[in-house]
């Protein structure tokens, strides 16, 4: 049992690092959101793994479903904001987001 926990937890941390790296390095707004999605996969796995380790797998499924719903709403709103940016600036490059400096 501990083995599965260790393996999955390593996967969680790796997914987390891939996502974070992508969010830091990426220049395209959509790719930043893809990085966030990768991190979310890791989070969902973390919750299910935690549940399977302490035997509360049913409870953890309830939590995971809530997390998935919330992330979908988050992504929908984020993509709407990305599309408004595209309409305003004709570009999705985060390096061009420089109106607010000072």
């Amino acid at each position, binding site marked *: 049992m501990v083995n*599965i926990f260790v393996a999955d937890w390593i996967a969680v941390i790796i997914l987390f690092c891939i996502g974070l790296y992508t969010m830091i*390095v990426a220049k395209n707004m959509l790719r930043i959101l893809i990085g966030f999605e990768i991190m979310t*996969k890791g989070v969902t796995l973390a919750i299910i793994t935690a549940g399977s*380790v302490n035997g509360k797998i*049913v409870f953890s*499924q*309830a939590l995971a479903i809530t997390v998935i719903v919330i992330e979908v709403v988050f992504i929908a709103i984020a*993509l709407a*904001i990305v599309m408004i940016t595209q309409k305003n600036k004709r570009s999705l490059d985060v390096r061009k987001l420089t109106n607010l400096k000072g």
Partner: protein
Amino acid sequence: MELHLLILIGLLLIPAVLAAFAMDLLRAAIALLVASLGLALTMFNLGAPLAGSFELSVGVGLITVLFVNAISLTRLVSEEERLERTKDHYRRFALLPVLVVLIGALMYRTQDFWAAGLEFVKYDEAGTVGEILWKSRGLDLIGQIVIIMVGVYGVAILFRRGSPNG
């Protein structure tokens, strides 16, 4: 460690790296889809079928549709710009596989430290996911309703017609 566990984790991690790596955003979205599939299978393997199928329908279906929509609506890059970006892109992400391997190895070697001291208490839990959600996580259900309302209003507002001040 069982073989199928490794395969499942591979199915989760490799598409995730590819999603970060793929120059074409559409391919990245498809890699994300495969990663979602891997996650759903891992969940089935861990004994969480309901969350797994939820992830299957939402992560594989809905989010991919949203991403593909957004990507196809925002593509405006010319060919030269694209080539220029490709070179730049792979240079920026070159470090990622190294990082993944390093962190994986580090976590694996130190597992005695961070997984130590855990007492795996076994709870006997009765009921199905629905019963748990309804009986003890009612607040989260309300939260889900509120957040879906936020999403609906938000999309309605952000795509409203007419002048911004009208």
